Structures are given as structure tokens and as C-alpha cells.
């Protein structure tokens, strides 16, 4: 039975967008914690720490996000945990975000001139104090624009969670389309909502990038 595409469907899709946002937020926050750990490990003096972090980044940047999602989703079932699409998507996207943010922030940390670390070291500041007060605040300024850029990628990446049956924006669109068979209308609406979420962030990233460039050339 094919029914009409109604305002109830639009509401259904829009309320599913909430899950897209929640999933993005979890993955971004988790990825921020994971990414900071990865970035610090990558820039540390410990050889093994550096190696493990590099390996982690390579694995997660070198495999499709969809495979990571499948591995976590079906992997959870194998180890006897209940199959929970939100949990699986959150874990997979967090790992994915950790790898990418880790790499972005490693670059930002390394872009802070080595003289800064040397001066802080010569002032007898401990490693945590050097990082917290001297290196990371400067790295943050360098990393902000690419980080926001990655957040846009991450929001769009959550659409893959639809494949393991998590009802976020894209999955809601599929459900409505299956009932109404108005693909252009339905997926047009879905795409428009993604655009409304992502476009301001893209603008923000570009704005920050130009401001950053001006700060450097000053």
C-alpha cells in the first residue's frame, strides 16, 4: 500500500534528525577525548606509545567507516552483548573520530614552534603544565578550523548507521520512502536537513580559517 507523503512524515523525519545530532555529539565528544589521547601519544617521547597511536590511526583511516560499523555491530553480538544499534554506531564513530581528530591535533601540536616547548622546559614546567598552558592553547587555535571541518564529515558519516538499522535521519527517510515511494521528495527533504545542519558549520570553519591565516601573516 502506497500512501501520500504528508506533514506527519516530515515531522517523523525531523524528529529522527535528533538522533543524528545525538549520535554526532557522542561521537565528537568521545572522539575528542580519544583524539587528544592519540595526539599526545603520537607526540610523546615513548617509542611504543607513538607506534601504537600511529597503528591505531592507520587502521581506522585505512578501512571504510562502514566496515568499522559492521565489525563493532556484529562483534558486539559475538561477544554476547545485546545488539544495540545506537551503542554500536556510537562506539564505531567514536573510534573513527578519535583516529581523525588524533591526526589533526597531532599536526597542530607539531605546528607549535619547538622553541615554545624548550622555553617552558627551561622554566622547569612539568609535561602536563607545558601541554596545558603553553602547547595546547596554541595548538587549539591552529586546529579549530580543521576540527570543525571534520565535524561536518562526522555528521554526514552518521548516515551510515542507518545500514545497521539505527533510525536516524537517513533511516527515517528510507522508512518514509518505503511507504510513500516519493524518493525525490523524501530524500530531498532528508538532504536539505543535512545541509541545514552542516552548512553553518562549513561557513564557520571557513571563517575561522581566514581569520587564522590573517593571524599567521600578521
Amino acid at each position, binding site marked *: 500500500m502506497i500512501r501520500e507523503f504528508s506533514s506527519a512524515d516530515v515531522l517523523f523525519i525531523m524528529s529522527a534528525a535528533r538522533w543524528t545530532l545525538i549520535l554526532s555529539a557522542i561521537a565528537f565528544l568521545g572522539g575528542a577525548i580519544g583524539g587528544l589521547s592519540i595526539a599526545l601519544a603520537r607526540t610523546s617521547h615513548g617509542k611504543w606509545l607513538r607506534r601504537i597511536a600511529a597503528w591505531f590511526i592507520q587502521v581506522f583511516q585505512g578501512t571504510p567507516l562502514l566496515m568499522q560499523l559492521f565489525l563493532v555491530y556484529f562483534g558486539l553480538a559475538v561477544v554476547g552483548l545485546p545488539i544495540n544499534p545506537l551503542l554500536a554506531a556510537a562506539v564505531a564513530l567514536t573510534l573513527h573520530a578519535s583516529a581523525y581528530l588524533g591526526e589533526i591535533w597531532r599536526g597542530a601540536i607539531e605546528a607549535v614552534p619547538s622553541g615554545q616547548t624548550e622555553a617552558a622546559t627551561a*622554566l622547569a614546567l612539568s609535561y602536563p603544565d607545558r601541554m596545558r598552558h603553553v602547547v595546547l592553547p596554541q595548538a587549539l587555535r591552529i586546529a579549530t578550523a580543521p576540527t570543525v571541518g571534520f565535524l561536518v564529515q562526522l555528521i554526514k558519516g552518521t548516515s551510515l548507521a542507518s545500514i545497521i538499522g539505527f533510525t536516524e535521519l537517513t533511516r527515517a527517510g528510507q522508512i518514509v520512502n518505503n511507504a510513500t515511494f516519493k524518493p525525490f521528495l523524501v530524500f530531498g527533504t532528508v538532504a536539505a536537513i543535512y545541509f541545514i545542519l552542516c552548512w553553518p558549520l562549513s561557513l564557520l570553519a571557513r571563517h575561522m580559517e581566514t581569520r587564522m591565516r590573517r593571524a599567521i601573516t*600578521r
Partner: protein
Amino acid sequence: MTEHAIIMRDVNKFYGAYHALVDVDLTVERGERIVICGPSGSGKSTLIRTINQLETIHSGTINVDGVELTAGGDNVAKVRQDVGMVFQSFNLFPHMTVLENCILAPMKTRKTPRAEAEQTARHYLERVKIPEQADKYPAQLSGGQQQRVAIARALCMKPRIMLFDEPTSALDPEMVKEVLDTMIDLAREGMTMLCVTHEMDFARAVADRVIFMDKGMIVEQGAPDVFFNNPQNERLKNFLGQIA
């Protein structure tokens, strides 16, 4: 309290296969002012950077103010609290005001309360003659002013030894004097100083001893009048001829 500020024995340092410091022996007395010169790549910067362990050494021993640097533990942290360093490129923290630059280390490392740290900072900013710049950011200052802030920042830790790594090499000529004057003041007050510099007038004016390094070795050293007027080593004669 030992009577020597720094004792280096048989110090060797390699960068890969490159022998950067070769069997360096150096004893510095308390209050002694030493100028180290030599061609680029001679190991002079490396030498002073081993004193606060910005560079590790491969063999030998370094004793700073009675603390054995190479003995491990928290000796390195202890020594760094008592050894201030000024860099060629200033290395002020650009995201902090001048005052914040000066109080960070005393508050974090020495656990000095903020009010006391700020008072100390203003005192030293006064001494380097820029008290009015306390709330500005480093980028708003001239090179000479930045380097004087860097000196004040190091002094805020109340170090017993100051290391200067080519402090005037990155400055425009008209700003060299204001930094040298600050260093001369410091020297007159009895600070133990090791300065890597090519400012030979500074060496003549304040140094107790001038050291010439070449290829990682201390080749010649002596009081400034002997060092400049009667150099023995051929390479030193050559070097003095070039910079005079």
C-alpha cells in the same frame, strides 16, 4: 653549598654520527661571568643547553650547584628551577600577556601565590625597564623589548645561574644595546652567567673568562685581555680576525 656553580667532566654528545661535544671539561665558579664564542656548529649552544638538559649527553657528568644532573630522579627538574635561560628567538608565549608569561612558571613550579608572583614579575619588569608593558601581548612589543621580557621571565624563577643562547643575534642593530645593557646590569649584580654571543664588546666589558670552542672542543680560554690581545690558537686568531 658547594663553591662551584657548574662542574662538567668529560662530557660527550652525539647527533647521530656527528660528535657535537668532545670530552668537554668546564668548571664555573659562583658569580663567574663566562662568554662562549666560536664558529657556527662549534657546539657552543649545545654546551649550554646540556646544563639544563635541553640536550641530553651521552657520557660524562654535569654537576649544577651541587646537584648531579646525570644521577636521575628529579634532579633535572631541581636544576631547571635554578637555571634560567634566554633564547635567540625569545620564545615568549604568544597567547599570554607579558605579566602572564612572567608568573606562569613561579605559580606552577614554585607554587608561588598569584599576588606574590605578580609582585615579583612587576619588580623584574621594572628592572629590565619595561614595567608599562605588563599587560601587552608579546607581538605588540619590539624585538628588544621581547628579549628583555624573556630575561625578566627567567629572573622571576629567581635562578642562581643564567644561560644566554645568542640573545642578541635575532635583533635589529639598534635594539642590541638595550638587551646588552640589561645583561650588563645583571652581571654587575653578581649573577653567574654563561653567554653564547658574538658581542665581543660585551665580553670585554663584563666577562671574567672567555671560552673559544671549535668542533665540539674547548680550544682556548682565558681572561678577556689575554684572550683578545694574545690569542695562542691559530683557529682563534682566524676567528677573531673575521669578527673584528
